[in-house]
């Protein structure tokens, strides 16, 4: 997984609540058996005026000029500012894959859906939760100032605005550690292989019906 330490980047505002993972990456693109290449179809139904299909050359598709990511001032954005309950719905990990592949490193919102939250951190995408009032203020600042950038520092858990204001955020220690070091958590879990084996033996002894070979013996 990609490491994340700190990023300083252009902010794009997506002003809607409950952005679901179907909207982030529509189902027809989930047919891929790879982890990459989803960026071109990120927010496909909002971004283009026609219906997209997998494997298509998107360079000549009609763009929706009203969609924020199509506006010239937000080209190259790496920080997505959005509203509450971002990432709700389907568990598709293609959602963070698409956001990352497009170029986002950070999403800032008042709240995130649980499964999306897990998936993002496993792919080096930092999710920053800030209070609703702060988000309202950031939206106003982004819209008022072309070229608005934020500095996001994971180590110190703070976001710094262009005026020097510091916004602190919470992130749990394990996720932070994995992200800062780009760690694969399967490797970390397998350090506990012995503990898992001991647990498994006890679990089987206590509830043998949970294991097929002993359930119907």
């Amino acid at each position, binding site marked *: 997984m990609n490491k994340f330490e700190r990023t300083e980047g252009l902010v794009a505002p997506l002003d809607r609540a409950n952005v679901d993972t179907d909207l982030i990456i529509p189902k027809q693109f989930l047919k891929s058996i790879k982890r990459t290449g989803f960026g071109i179809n990120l927010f496909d139904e909002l971004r283009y005026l026609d219906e997209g299909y997998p494997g298509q050359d998107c360079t000549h598709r009609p763009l929706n000029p009203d969609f924020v990511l199509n506006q010239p001032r937000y080209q190259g954005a790496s920080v997505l500012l959005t509203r509450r309950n971002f990432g709700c719905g389907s568990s598709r990990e293609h959602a963070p894959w698409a956001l990352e592949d497009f170029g986002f490193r950070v999403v800032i919102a008042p709240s995130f859906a649980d499964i999306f939250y897990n998936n993002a951190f496993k792919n080096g995408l930092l999710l920053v939760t800030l209070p609703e009032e702060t988000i309202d203020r950031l939206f106003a600042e982004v819209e008022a100032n072309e070229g608005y950038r934020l500095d996001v520092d994971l180590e110190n858990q703070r976001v710094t605005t262009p005026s020097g204001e510091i916004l602190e955020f919470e992130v749990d220690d394990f996720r932070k550690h994995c992200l800062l070091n780009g760690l694969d958590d399967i490797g970390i879990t397998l350090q506990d292989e012995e503990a898992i084996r001991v647990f498994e033996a006890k679990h089987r002894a206590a509830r043998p*019906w949970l294991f097929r070979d002993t359930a119907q013996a």
Partner: protein
Amino acid sequence: MAGQTLYDKLWSQHLVKERDDGTALIYIDRQLLHEVTSPQAFEGLRLAGRKPWRLDANLATPDHNVPTTVKERAEGNAGIKDPVSLIQVQTLDDNCVEFGIEEFKINDPRQGIVHVVGPEQGATLPGMTVVCGDSHTATHGAFAALAHGIGTSEVEHVLATQCLLAQKMKNMQVRVEGELGTGVTAKDVVLAIIGRIGTAGGTGYAIEFAGSAIQGLSMEGRMTVCNMAIEAGARVGLIAVDDTTIDYLAERPFAPTGEQWQAAVADWCGLVSDDSAEFDKVVVLDAAEIEPQVSWGTSPEMVTGISGEVPDPAEQTDDTLRSGYTRALQYMGLAPRQKITDIRLDKVFIGSCTNSRIEDLREAAKVARGKKVADSIKLAMVVPGSGLVKRMAEAEGLDRIFTEAGFEWREPGCSMCLAMNADKLGAGEHCASTSNRNFEGRQGYGGRTHLVSPAMAAAAAIAGHFVDVRAIEEA
């Protein structure tokens, strides 16, 4: 001292290790796999040279991409006309062979939607931890199993380690007390719950559904309720074990037998929240007040009763909510204050992991019997949740009731719930759907989904617009 909730008990029974940083390793008893969210997980194992930790914990079946027409299904994988879908299904088959995982392939009579197949086989048992790379894994909580929808990285993690990295959730109890009215089903109950607590109301919680109306539901109904816990933001939905649970599981193929069955049943009886357990949040609904529900918007929380009307965004005081309502009405092509019964439909879909089990089909057939689908309906389809549900329905003659009324009777799969196969809505089409999500584009580009119960969907197919199924059932 406060007692334990059902969730607390399941958590502690599977806790391998707690770390100082608040994360924990929990042991996973069952993983269900399908073609969409597993290929990258298997590829990850291959690249790292890892093997699955425990083969018999896994069970796979293709469901999202499979065609549902009889003709295409007769050809097996070769009947999948979309080459990208075909590769995905073929990849699941290949991975299951390579890694030694049991799979119900496309034309195995046991194939179906993972969340229908697991319980039907007894592969989901009370007291288990169940995971699947699909958010509707919450379904299995109806059996007092701790069931999580997970992402693909987690699928790989569970394959490799038999564990999930998790953080303990908070406990919420949603109690539905009293008796449901005639024609009011589990689907209406869960839509009413989502309407009450909102699509993020359960975020961070494991929701236990309880109360006399929940206890009165069949296992099929309980699965419908738990299935949509995720639509209220909760990864986990749970219902305590009782005789209904145990009766359902007896003699299922994967269920324990003989002495093991006796021991299991004795153990399962403890899978209830203690009377003295304390929940972080409690929500109570009066069953008698729940009427058949219809969603009008683009989030499952945008729902109302059949006697209701589409809300007026101008009356919303919260800015974010107001703009969300405005956008939803525009997408759905509905006017403020429009009566729900005035919404005309183009298509009707009865199926999905929410509502494709035998009881769902019986409820829909009861309404459709002897009637005809309205001429204005372009397509009304019934997609059973599994090959075994299909056979059972055919043995009961339900297929004939549907086809005589003008419904298409299809082969099992996820179908138009998310339209990864050829079953989809056209732009602007309104669909009465028994599925779980009314998100923009979910059932097809520009498609307009209204979430309802199977009985309400069948009634809408016959009328051509939404009608109160209670009026039909009483007539």
